[in-house]
């Protein structure tokens, strides 16, 4: 494979593509609401009328507005329809012919779409994730070619460092620095791992990227491998994402067949092989040392750091671990240059972030927004507020490691530092909206129960602390708690935060601490009458 062959594939693909196209979202959300039946009816209809050559019915990745699936778009007009039912097939074909159509349309001028800035999701909804030709036709694998033939590994790391990209898994560690550390760490072999063990309740952006544009992640990983000097990569993807796994497997096979993965990529000396490892359903395996243990075939338990995986990771070798979304940012940086990337976002948080907007919100789905946008813009303008107009009370960001941010702080810009300053975290990108009817003790209980179920059991503060906290919160909820229990809750939260072995235990108290901070009265209201006698 060389650049000419790549261009030839792209040209051939564009030339043979029919002008009229019906594109349906084939990601998990829309499939669950019946996208495949819609597709069957459309194909049946076109076959009956003998128009199957003239009009192409194609699968594309996630179109973003997951709460209104199935979503179908027609080209060249670009009209997008929501809540499409199989019976709407005729109407959609009519719309393609320029006739009137009564199927509900997505308002493409709504802030939900207009406020987005698509970098990672730029191909979502445009290409068929099952076909490498589609990805090549939109410029795919050019960055990898450019990097291998025109840049040194050091220059690639420089570019990533200058772009200001930070880890999208949640902690926001500078990506360039991590790559440089792995590149400089001595080791006979090095590894690149893509962490696709997305486990936060309410977060599904990594799944959507893998289901919509798997080659983007593979290309990002290959560029990273070239930069750090690795020849083997692993994608650790959770078993609950069967569609993502299937599409990744297909994508890896296609890339290998085209010589874009495997030995001597682009006829250079660079080799890179990618294998998939499927997780068995443990949240803690998203923690990098537990993830490594799991790939090695051991029990998925974290170990103390240092040493960090960059120095001693998989089988003791220097290992680069980045999240799906981090890798998905790489090609855009190479294509457009680090200065372009660093011009987006805030001073310390560059680029865009994808959020999964869920909960009591009118527009549920995935949004990619520039860093620095305020929570108010996301929740009220893009999300459209709550479905029934009840005032929004808070948003929860960062999943079980994050916190609740009250509506009074919705002027907070979304970036790593600002969210940390109000007691939450950026996290992987879950954003759960809660309205006035939500009790914050219930919210804290929910996340604590999650952490209790997901604690691996290795260290005592997390193993027993989560159970004790959950029991005390339950007691409180049942109005059986004493004022002293609140003191004990806070004490235990501190113990877990300071002494737990890994990020899961250290951050497990966050939902409790942040709700206690902003909604303490809701806890105090629940302290029972019996309790007061004792005090």
């Amino acid at each position, binding site marked *: 494979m060389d650049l000419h062959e790549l261009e030839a594939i792209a040209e051939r693909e564009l030339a043979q593509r029919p002008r009229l196209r019906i594109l349906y979202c084939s990601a998990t959300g829309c499939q669950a609401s019946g996208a495949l039946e819609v597709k069957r009816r459309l194909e049946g209809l076109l076959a009956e009328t003998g128009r199957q050559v003239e009009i192409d019915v194609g699968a594309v990745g996630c179109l973003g507005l997951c709460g209104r699936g199935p979503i179908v778009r027609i080209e060249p007009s670009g009209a997008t329809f929501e809540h499409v039912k199989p019976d709407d097939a005729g109407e959609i074909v009519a719309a393609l012919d320029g006739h009137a159509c009564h199927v509900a349309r997505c308002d493409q001028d709504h802030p939900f779409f207009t406020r987005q800035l698509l970098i990672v999701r730029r191909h979502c909804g445009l290409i068929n994730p099952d076909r490498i030709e589609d990805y090549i036709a939109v410029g795919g694998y050019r960055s990898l070619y450019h990097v291998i033939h025109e840049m040194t590994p050091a220059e690639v790391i420089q570019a990533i460092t200058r772009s200001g990209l930070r880890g999208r898994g949640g902690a926001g560690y500078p990506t360039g620095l991590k790559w440089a550390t792995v590149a400089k760490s001595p080791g006979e072999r090095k590894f690149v791992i893509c962490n696709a063990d997305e486990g936060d309740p309410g977060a599904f952006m990594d799944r959507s990227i893998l289901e919509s544009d798997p080659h983007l992640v593979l290309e990002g990983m290959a560029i990273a491998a070239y930069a750090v000097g690795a020849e083997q990569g692993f994608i650790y993807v959770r078993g609950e994402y069967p569609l993502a796994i299937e599409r990744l497997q297909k994508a890896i096979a296609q890339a290998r067949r085209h010589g874009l993965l495997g030995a001597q990529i682009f006829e250079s000396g660079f080799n890179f092989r990618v294998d998939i490892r499927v997780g068995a359903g*443990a949240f803690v395996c998203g923690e990098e040392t537990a993830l490594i243990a799991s790939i090695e075939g051991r029990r998925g338990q974290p170990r103390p750091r240092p040493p960090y995986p960059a120095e001693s990771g998989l089988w003791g070798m220097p290992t680069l671990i980045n999240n799906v979304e981090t890798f998905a940012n790489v090609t855009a940086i190479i294509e457009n240059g680090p200065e372009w990337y660093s011009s987006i976002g805030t001073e310390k948080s560059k680029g865009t972030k994808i959020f999964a907007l869920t909960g009591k919100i009118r527009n549920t789905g995935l949004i990619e927004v520039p860093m620095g946008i305020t929570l108010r813009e996301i929740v009220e303008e893009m999300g459209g507020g709550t479905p029934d107009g009840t005032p929004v009370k808070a948003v929860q960001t960062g999943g079980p490691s994050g916190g609740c941010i009250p509506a009074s702080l919705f002027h907070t810009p979304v970036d790593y530092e600002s969210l940390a300053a109000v007691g939450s975290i950026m996290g992987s990108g879950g954003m759960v909206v809660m309205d006035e009817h939500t009790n914050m003790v219930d919210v804290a209980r929910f996340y604590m129960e999650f952490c209790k179920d997901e*604690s691996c059991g290795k260290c005592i503060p997390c193993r027993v602390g989560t*159970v*004790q906290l959950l029991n005390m919160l339950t007691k409180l909820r049942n109005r059986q708690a004493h004022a002293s229990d609140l003191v004990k809750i806070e004490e235990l939260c501190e*113990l877990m935060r300071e*002494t737990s072995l890994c990020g899961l235990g250290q951050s497990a108290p966050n939902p409790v601490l942040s709700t206690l901070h902003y909604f303490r009265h809701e806890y105090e209201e629940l302290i029972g009458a019996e309790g007061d006698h004792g005090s």
Partner: protein
Amino acid sequence: MAAKTLTIDGHLVSARPGETLLEAIREAGITIPTLCHLDGLSDVGACRLCLVEIEGQRRLQPACMTMVSEGMVVHTNTPRLQAYRRQIIELLFAERNHVCSVCVASGHCELQRLAGMVGMDHVRYEYLSPDCPVDISHMRFGIDHNRCVLCTRCVRACDEIEGVHTWDVAGRGVDARVITDMNQPWGTSTTCTSCGKCQLACPTGAIFPRGVTVGERPLASERIALIVEARKQRW
């Protein structure tokens, strides 16, 4: 490589390169509580009792898994660390059914000693009182899960010294249990060599020789290190 000089609780201490902080602390004559650490076995940093404060580091670090480095300034016994250690021991006592008055290890139990050492005189947390089984299917030994603290010393002794790996951990969180083979009765294990090293390594009365009664099981965990040393010297 040159020896390292560090400051532990205000005293200047020298240490060999590659030594752990725990070794340096002990050499300096300072006692800090440990539970999952056992001389002769690898370290896992799980019990969090040996956490120390290191100046310039944001997080507390386990002394057993932190390597000494030049100029390190370490505090091993601050009021904050004392409070955390007491809380951790409280959590352990509340987790399973630790009833000293009927335990074979009473008086020779590391958990008991630790409670005394950190000054834990009562448990403020709710006892979880789980329903734990006792397995006495093995000819010579028994395991009472009510007394297990999940330090995994038995797992490591079996794997690293006996080289058998009969023991492992199953389940997650508070439901985690040490198991033999594929979670079958110990007596039916086809890998167990009945060497008894798990029993030597156990800090509490969880693994015990059959036939002993209250307070009769001596604490002999230092013999694990002796076996390791003896093998090195090829006696």
